[in-house]
């Protein structure tokens, strides 16, 4: 519908055509290689990494990249997988508005025969690429795809983040117990945004909160730049509080809301945008606003270890723990299965996460020692999630609730934990 999307699409089509032409000569060859490569036993663990280094999710890339580096470093320091150092291959997937980049990044990583692929974080991007990866029997794990539709998506698709049904319920209750009567929702029209919105709307309406804007049709385009009419519309509905579900669009959107006279101390943010805004806003703008992020608040120790990789985190650690645990789990699965091929890793992912019980261990080194002794293990990593359930979702998860302080930084308030629904 949107005219700018049409440009993107035209660009994507052109790019796809070019890629198709360029790929003509070599596609047959790489297919053969792929089939042979994945089913054969191997002791070389090749980690494929798909990061959103550009586009509207680019701010999420630094913590993921740092976590990836840290995980590989920890694995290799402990002796590697099956006695060999892990090697990596990475590519930039960009965001879902650059579908051409999604698939070319995936192809570029797949061409190196990875044992396992970490990423991408965005639900929309996962939707664009997962079939390409899983059809080659290469397991992939998303650290941030929270779409409720992805539970049991594919036997080769895992995630270390809880689906939106979980975060939505916590956020919905948070809004209700704060006494909000009229809630406006500024949400972008994207798989993640509308999925999470629907869960929250269901929860708050059950508690008697009236949703005055954004309940079903009022979503903005993910590439939107002009938020003044949205802010005006929200202000006109006179809400007690505004829920903002967006990525990088959050900064101009909140400024527009403030300009329109909306109370910015009563905003609710979600995992896509609960981050440090001390460099973006005047002090005190967001004070008192709340946000939720799946996972436990990363310990200072983990954050300082992330920083030690030399990556500038840019004030956010979102999905760093999920990335780290995802890579460690895959490495342990390869070690347990005795081979670093995709099928072996896929078969052992649930086991090393503790689905069948076993001795608990909290680092690659400790778990590796137990595995070498022939014991069953239960990796308990930095995210604090439970073992994978039958849908390859974490069986239990934590949602952290944060409150923004006077410097516009989210401060950890409390954690809610519980079981992830499997139906």
């Amino acid at each position, binding site marked *: 519908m949107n005219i700018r999307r049409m440009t993107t699409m035209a660009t994507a089509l052109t790019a796809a055509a070019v890629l198709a032409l360029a790929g003509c000569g070599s596609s047959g060859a790489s297919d053969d290689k792929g089939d042979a490569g994945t089913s054969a036993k191997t002791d070389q663990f090749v980690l494929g990494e798909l990061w959103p280094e550009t586009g509207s999710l680019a701010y999420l890339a630094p913590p993921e990249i740092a976590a990836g580096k840290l995980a590989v470093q920890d694995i290799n320091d402990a002796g590697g997988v099956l006695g060999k150092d892990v090697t990596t291959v990475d590519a930039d997937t960009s965001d879902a508005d650059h579908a051409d980049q999604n698939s070319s990044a995936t192809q570029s990583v797949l061409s190196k025969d990875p044992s396992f692929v970490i990423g991408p974080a965005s639900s929309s991007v996962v939707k664009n690429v997962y079939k390409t990866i899983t059809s080659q029997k290469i397991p992939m794990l998303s650290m941030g795809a929270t779409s409720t539709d992805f539970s049991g998506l594919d036997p080769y698709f895992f995630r270390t983040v809880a689906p939106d049904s979980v975060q939505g319920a916590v956020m919905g209750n948070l809004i209700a117990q704060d006494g909000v009567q009229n809630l406006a929702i500024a949400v972008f029209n994207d798989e993640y945004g509308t999925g999470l919105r629907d869960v929250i709307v269901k929860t708050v309406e059950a508690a008697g909160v009236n949703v005055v804007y954004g309940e079903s049709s009022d979503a903005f385009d993910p590439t939107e730049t002009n938020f003044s009419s949205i802010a005006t519309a929200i202000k006109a509905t006179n809400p007690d509080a505004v829920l903002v579900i967006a990525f990088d669009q959050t900064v101009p959107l909140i400024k527009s809301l403030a300009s329109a006279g909306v109370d910015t101390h009563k905003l609710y943010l979600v995992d896509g945008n609960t981050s440090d805004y001390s460099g973006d806003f005047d002090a005190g703008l967001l004070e008192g606003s709340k946000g939720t992020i799946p996972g436990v608040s990363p310990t200072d120790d983990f954050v300082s270890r992330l920083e030690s990789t030399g990556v500038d985190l840019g004030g956010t650690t979102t999905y760093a723990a999920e990335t780290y645990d995802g890579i460690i789990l895959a490495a342990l699965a390869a070690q347990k299965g005795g081979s670093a091929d995709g099928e072996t890793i896929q078969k052992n992912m649930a086991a090393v996460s503790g689905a069948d019980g076993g001795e608990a261990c909290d680092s690659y080194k400790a778990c590796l020692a137990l595995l070498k002794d022939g014991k069953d293990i239960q990796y308990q990593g930095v995210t604090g999630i439970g073992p994978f359930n039958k849908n390859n979702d974490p069986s239990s998860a934590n949602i952290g609730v944060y409150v923004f302080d006077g410097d516009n930084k989210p401060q950890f308030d409390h954690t809610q934990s*519980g079981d992830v629904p499997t139906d």
Partner: protein
Amino acid sequence: MEKQTASFPRARWRFLRRMPCLMIVAVGIAAMAVPVQAQAAEAVAVCNPTAQNGCVNGILQDAGKQPVAGATVTLSGAESAQTTTADDGTWAFAVESDGEYTVAIDESVAEQYGLTASSMDVTIEKNSFDKQRAVVRFDRTTNDAASGTDMQGDGTNSTGADSDSKAASDSSAAGFGSTIGARFWQQLYSGVIFGLMLGLMSVGMNLVYGTTGLSSFSHGEQVTLGGLACYVGTQLLHWPLPVSAVFAVAVGAFTGLLQNEVLWAPLRRRHVGTMQQMIVTIGLSMAMQYIFQFLFGGDIKGITRSIPDTFDIGPITTDWPTVISALIAIVVIVGVSMFLYHTRFGRATRAVSDNAALAAVSGIDVEQVVRIVWILSCALAALSGVLLGIYLNGISWNTGATLLLLMFSSVTLGGLGTANGALVGSLVIGVMADMSTLVIPDDMRYASALAILIIVLLIRPQGIFGKQQRVG
């Protein structure tokens, strides 16, 4: 198919293996549950669910959001307790066992504050995210509250769903009518502001088209460049905003000159067709976009950090930066128009625009005119980038690209090659885009503006201000 059948017995086997384990856990829970049952729920100030306890909590307030302090709240069911509401109306119970609970307040309190209910049933399940905390609100605004009890929990979800959604749609329909009035003037205003900025961009694009016949797809990147240059000035070099804006315009003007000298003039000399030149602008557009992204990253860059104080003019809320930006845009557009119609160089530009060959024969230095037009066009684009970056609260590597089609539409709508046409076309597009959200979903607003373009072109193919041209 094959994969699924293969994995099914496997999953089942795992389940069977876990059975004894589960049973032990279940027995353990049952054993623990006995003493827990005897314990009463606890009234606490703040309750957060953990593995050991669930929460029944809420806030007691009247329909006007005023908290009701000191009211008694009673919990009964699987466990029972009593508490009084705090000064801010909040109350909370930490409960230890799963099951059904009923929360009640005094009926007289409910009546006194006009609350729709005085008791509600909830279900607590400590391990489930959607049932570990039950928030009870007696001030619910939905109309189906007449029954008073059993408003929450599984019952409502199925039986009350219809009336729930009906009530919601009723209220949103009512809200819709009442908010149009409040939004009309404000959105007209923001439409005009956006139209003016679009006009500033389009005028330059239209000048280039008029003099060289080239539709420049890289004009959007010139806008981005202006905004980013201003960001560099204010945020990286810590210059005051006006200095940064002048810097941005200078950078824009310089790139215009540079482009003309190294790219467009040589292409013109070699008599490369405008179609081919247009393809070059598309390539240039992509190259510039990704250079911006490489240099500045993919996030939105704010030119200013602070949010200006707002004030009201009648039904419109605005702030000084917006007003000043609009005034600058008007002055510059009027200035360009005067320049074209009342100076010698302007007349030369229009002559080139009408017929370059004839203008050259009559002694006008066409190359010089085109050079100045490129400089002017890129400087205007940079200025609009600065104003846009301030108005939209940020500029990113692709901001200009997202506006390119709107610029083309404005220019086409107003009449290709006419300066005033670009302004009027931009205002129409800007106002249409912003006003259309009064009736259609927000993410479709640009489509409505482009629908106007199609309708206008069907009626008046040359655009609003365009000259009729004879075909054939």
